[in-house]
């Protein structure tokens, strides 16, 4: 069986449709609840980050996501044509705020991406695309 590839516009509407497609693809696999949650969390955090930051300048962009199921793992490979962005090198925001008044509103997506993943691998491809490969543990 060929591995599912999701290709969708880099917009909020594109994300919503692709998220539904991802969930349908995951429905066909017998994943434990933690692995299933982590797959959806990774997809949500990576794609919303690309749309919000990578495509903030507008224009027509697409995001491609390849989904693979090697032994006891799920691999999500994201590709986009935004400016180079390597989340592996970014420090996540997990601040213990002194009080709610000092708390940063956002910025926790990267921390959750790292929590949900077993391995993160980034490369800038020769055709100037970001490729982020996220490996998620999926024990039987």
């Amino acid at each position, binding site marked *: 069986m060929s591995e599912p590839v999701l290709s969708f516009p880099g917009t909020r509407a594109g994300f919503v*449709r692709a998220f539904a497609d991802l969930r349908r693809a995951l429905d066909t696999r017998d994943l434990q609840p933690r692995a299933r949650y982590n797959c959806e969390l990774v997809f949500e955090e990576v794609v919303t980050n690309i749309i919000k930051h990578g495509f903030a300048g507008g224009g027509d962009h697409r995001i491609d996501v390849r989904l693979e199921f090697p032994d006891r793992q799920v691999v999500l490979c994201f590709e986009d044509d935004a400016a180079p962005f390597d989340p592996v090198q970014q420090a996540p925001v*997990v601040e*213990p705020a002194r009080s*709610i008044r000092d*708390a940063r509103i956002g910025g926790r997506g990267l921390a959750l991406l790292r929590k949900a993943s077993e391995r993160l691998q980034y490369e800038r491809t020769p055709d100037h695309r970001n490729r982020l490969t996220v490996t998620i543990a999926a024990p039987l």
Partner: protein
Amino acid sequence: MSIGESLVDMEISDLDNELTKITLSGRLDTPGVDRIEARFVAAVVPANKSAVVDISRVDFVASMGIRLFITVARSLAMRHAKLAIYGAQSMVNEVFDHVSLSEMVPVVASESEAIAAVSS
């Protein structure tokens, strides 16, 4: 409702004159937060009352959901009111723990603990 739409629902009630209760169910992913954010903020913040949020029927929270809770809790703090969350399922609780949400917003097990947290 198709799977393409976010399955999230929200109920608002007054526990008494000083306290609002919000009951959420479904998914607090980006589409879910988009769907309820304006109503959630409008129900809680202008009232200048503390609020407790029952999330026992929420089975998925991503960073957008956490952002919503922090936004509302911070707005309430500016008005000398509080927000507390209770009843998180285990995976949701792990997500909260990972971003230290409980250091900013009380995250407790039961409604009575949530009421005590916003009343202190």
